[in-house]
């Protein structure tokens, strides 16, 4: 069963399932699965890995550690950098069968402006996500942790593009709803949450941190309850659409996020376990919504 089409900030989507930024590499997946990937593409909108101005190698391995009902990662935003992304990756991503959202992160307002200006001028890009929340890079938490910083950053970026701006919030903020309200006041078109929660694991053999970067971000079903609460808290404070995510692994989970106030949802860690998870979750969600419609139609009779 296919879900109903939706609109996200004026961009029509065939359904309500996105991927979380950094949890799916469509180009690598195409190498592994070939054109069959495109014929049954698992998401209704594709969100790129976060792009920075300069290329980044990412963090030293080990980068992953399994956690109870989830995992901790310290990937460190490896990417080709803006110039090579636009030259090498974008032409390939533009051929995906769904709208494209490009995620960007800058270490200063000037860098952010460069990124938003550049991707905002590309016709093939439908939406721009501003990552103010990646907890793996030391400076990443600064903007998103503070409503005033977030408002100042979005105000600077807002005039640079007509494309919808989605602000990806950090769950480590003292009051994420206040940060969301600040983003809305500065002209953001939507907010996305949650990013991974800061976490750590100890290797019992060495009694040292398991990850090469010592700390990382926790994701998977382990964070779902935290995510739901934050989505509900943000929904109570803003009128702009919310992209809800955090441990969604089933249509039931997705519907919980919609009930909490999300307009659309994103799947992340579950895709690691099954690249078709987005499609499965969409079908399960559509069945749940259809059953709800049938039930309310029955009640009306």
């Amino acid at each position: 069963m296919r879900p109903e089409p939706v609109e996200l900030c004026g961009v029509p989507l065939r359904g309500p399932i996105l991927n979380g930024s950094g949890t799916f590499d469509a180009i690598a997946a195409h190498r592994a699965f070939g054109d069959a990937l495109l014929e049954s593409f698992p998401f209704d909108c594709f969100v790129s890995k976060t792009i920075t101005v300069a290329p980044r190698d990412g963090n030293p391995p080990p980068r992953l550690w399994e956690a109870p009902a989830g995992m901790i990662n310290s990937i460190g935003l490896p990417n080709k950098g803006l110039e090579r992304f636009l030259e090498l990756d974008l032409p390939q991503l533009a051929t995906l069968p769904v709208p494209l959202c490009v995620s960007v992160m800058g270490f200063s307002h000037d860098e952010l402006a460069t990124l938003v200006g550049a991707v905002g001028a590309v016709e093939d890009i439908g939406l721009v996500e501003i990552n103010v929340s990646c907890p793996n890079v030391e400076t990443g938490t600064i903007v998103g942790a503070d409503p005033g910083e977030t408002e100042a950053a979005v105000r600077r970026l807002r005039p640079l593009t007509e494309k919808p701006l989605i602000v990806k919030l950090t769950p480590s903020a003292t009051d994420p709803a206040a940060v969301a309200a600040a983003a809305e006041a500065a002209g953001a078109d939507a907010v996305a949450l949650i990013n991974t929660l800061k976490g750590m694991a100890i290797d019992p053999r060495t009694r040292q941190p398991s990850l090469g970067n010592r700390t990382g971000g926790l994701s998977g079903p382990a964070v779902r309850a935290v995510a739901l609460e934050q989505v509900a808290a943000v929904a109570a404070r803003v009128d702009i659409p919310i992209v809800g995510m955090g441990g969604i692994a089933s249509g039931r989970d997705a519907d919980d996020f919609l009930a909490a106030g999300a307009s659309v949802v994103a799947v992340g860690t579950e895709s690691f376990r099954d690249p078709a998870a987005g499609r499965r979750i969409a079908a399960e969600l559509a069945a749940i919504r259809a059953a709800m419609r049938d039930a309310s139609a029955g009640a009306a009779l």
Partner: protein
Amino acid sequence: MTLTAEARTLAPPERRIAEVRSVERIGAYDLITARDPIGPPDPRPGQFYMLAAGERWGGGAGERPYLPRAFSYARARPLAGGQGVDLQFLLEEVGPGTCRLGELVAGDPLALLGPLGIGFESPPADRRPLLVGGGIGVAPLLCWDDELRAGAREPGVLLGFRSAGHARAADLFAGSPDVSTDDGSVGRAGVVTEPLRADLERDPLAVVHACGPEGMLDAVRSVCGELGVPARLALEAGMACGYGACFGCVVPTVDGYARVCVDGPVFDAAVLA
């Protein structure tokens, strides 16, 4: 999107359920045979699958396992009719994932994704193939040995194990591999790179294909580098997805980090940093 030629068989883009046909104890290891009903019949030796028990994957010690686990396939036997394949995986029960997989019995569901990654390629005609395996790393060499033999390029096979129990895996090979054990309980006592060095000093016109623990692969690289022999190494790394999504399984190369799952697992030793 365009695809460049790589030594890989493409995987269906979804996790599917295979049926466990048997789980056989081979000394210290388990050999799982599973029937994959819709997967491609022709994975490339060196490619791998992400495996998870179809039921009760999670809720074990420490509420794990959660992520699937990557295993090179050991052997593949296509089913009659051109679709589907019986796959064999060799595993050692060392953690919550491998222990749960080791509990499986015939008829149980096995969730799998694959085949994934880039496999082995035949060496040029003027160089003989020489396979070097250590421990559980002998798994991908089984199907590669079979394929080279079928193509009339019978390789030398040098295997190293901890002890006699582990060395039982050598019996799975078609020929008579040269076996070393750390404790000398079977074959020669010592590490596999000692017979490797002797072999290559006798005839360096070879390409080494190796899979095994990190320390063994480092030693293989060093011997091959010293003697000017090309080496292809099948690497292992912890990974969440197996298809390039998580960026967790990187290894340093001369061009920066590469993902073991999509850029490997088989790498030319010369590109590794």
